[in-house]
């Protein structure tokens, strides 16, 4: 059964139809790519899935339950986490605080308990700290836990953003161009990491990406979006040879034989 499924999703801005007939499904544990040329509507689709935009029509179902019209924080609490194309860390906070904020939705103590600093507060705070550090350790960031996140190098900021998204305990993780601005070596490491995260955290991942090698190598299925419509869907091999995709996205300049 599909964990996340959209049908006939449409988003119009005034007279402009940014996304139409957006039908995708994500089965549990899959790693799916969403590609398309600039302005194809990929990020708009992401914003609908995460509640930033309300779809003009159509449905989004997370584990069979409609999430259309819910606020972004409600959707996060239901189990969809995301990262951003342009990194959005809490820049002036420490690395560990960035992660601790993501644990907030699971905090049980109330405001009064927090003010009185009872035993429940102390215990829960200690637990959050411990969990956050453990998560940072997985991403090899624990030795920098008390540094301000804006002082991290670019690659580590990307890693921290993914770690922070995972701290919300998602079922589905949406990554918006995680390899943007990375060199080939970093992209390669990222690929490994994404696959590893999926297995380790038993996630379903939807990935927007421009970097062809990343998408082709790591994704099990790929959707291709052009002018707001899904024009192709299938395994990387099919996408690679699909004439529509080549026309819309890859063009003649991409040397396909070099990829193989």
């Amino acid at each position: 059964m599909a964990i996340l499924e959209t049908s006939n999703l449409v988003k119009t801005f005034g007279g402009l139809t940014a996304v139409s007939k957006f039908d995708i499904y994500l089965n549990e544990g899959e790693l799916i790519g969403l590609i398309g040329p600039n302005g194809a509507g990929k990020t708009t689709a992401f914003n609908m899935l995460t509640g930033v935009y309300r779809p003009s029509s159509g449905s989004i179902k997370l584990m069979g339950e409609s999430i259309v019209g819910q606020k972004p924080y409600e959707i996060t609490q239901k189990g969809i986490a995301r990262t951003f194309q342009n990194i959005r860390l809490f820049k002036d906070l420490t690395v560990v605080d960035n992660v601790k904020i993501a644990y907030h939705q699971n905090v049980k103590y109330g405001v009064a308990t927090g003010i009185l600093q009872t035993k429940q507060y102390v215990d829960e705070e200690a637990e959050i700290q411990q969990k956050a550090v453990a998560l940072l350790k997985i991403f090899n960031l624990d030795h920098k836990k008390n540094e301000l996140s804006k002082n991290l190098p670019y690659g580590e900021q990307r890693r921290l953003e993914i770690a922070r998204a995972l701290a919300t305990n998602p079922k589905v993780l949406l990554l918006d161009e995680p390899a943007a601005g990375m060199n080939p070596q970093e992209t390669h490491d990222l690929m490994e990491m994404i696959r590893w995260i999926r297995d380790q955290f038993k996630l379903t991942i939807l990935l927007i990406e421009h970097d062809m090698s990343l998408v082709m190598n790591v994704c099990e299925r790929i959707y291709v979006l052009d002018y707001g419509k899904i024009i192709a869907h299938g395994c990387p091999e099919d996408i690679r040879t699909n004439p529509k995709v080549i026309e819309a996205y890859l063009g003649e300049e991409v040397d396909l034989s070099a990829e193989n």
Partner: protein
Amino acid sequence: MNKKKLIFITGAVAVGVVVQLLISSGVINPYFAQILTLMSMYAILATSLNLINGITGQFSLGHAGFMALGGYFSAILTTKLALPLPNFLMFPLSLLFGGLVAAAAGFLVGLPTLRLRGDYLAIATLGLGEIIRVMFVNWKYVGAAAGMKGIPGYTNFLWTYVIAVFSILIIVNFIKSSHGRACISIREDEIAAETMGINTTKYKVMAFVIGAFFAGVAGGIFGHLIRLLHPNSFTFMVSVEILLMVVLGGLGSITGSIAAAVFLTGLTEALRQFSDLRMIIYSLMLIVIMLFRPQGLLGTREFSLDMFSKFTKKAEKAER
């Protein structure tokens, strides 16, 4: 953690006891005692505004309005409805009442206005402060434009100091809790905060309500200190004065707010004979801070004992 808390509490108690003893024995004359009382009151106002402006990052200019609400409503309780209660019960009760009225107003106003961002919120809260003031100008029951007279002078240094210490403790503990972190995340990046599962509207309103509550309490202290409430005591300039304390101390730094509140209250008194120059000096100070230290004296950091130990460590290294 616990050691720090212990140091803070002993320090706070020691300062309170010593100053109170000096006042009782007459070493500190009533004039200075009143200045110390005002300093404590402004510390409450500055920290509570810092919770809204500095911690949660919502630019509010309506603090004088909440102060007025608290001041008038607590005075109504002590002056108009003279309940048969001893003073030591009546006063805190009236302050609590004033704070709750201000908090309720903060909730009602916060829900719609906190959807606005930046400049728009500043303008909306500025308007709110003026609406509250004009309401008191026209409300005959509390003396309208002539002001409300005959308020009992319950406020003294000890009361104000103790309430200030507790207010600051509550605000600091709130900030340190996960709920406070949620507020800080809104300041840092509202969109990212929402994506982390934080109900941003809820926490903005929460910070606004807590801030309004303590502004109301401070208003009650003010009314029972001056013993006369006049709508002109709560003009827009009062909000600006409190804001200046927050900006001077550093948006997001509670210790900075307290230090700035003490410093600026002292400065106001020192410059009383040059009252025309006062606002010029204030403005110049603000310009200089914005030019050379836009994050305020302490930025978002807190003044702590660790700072000393870091400083001494650095000095030790330098010596080697």
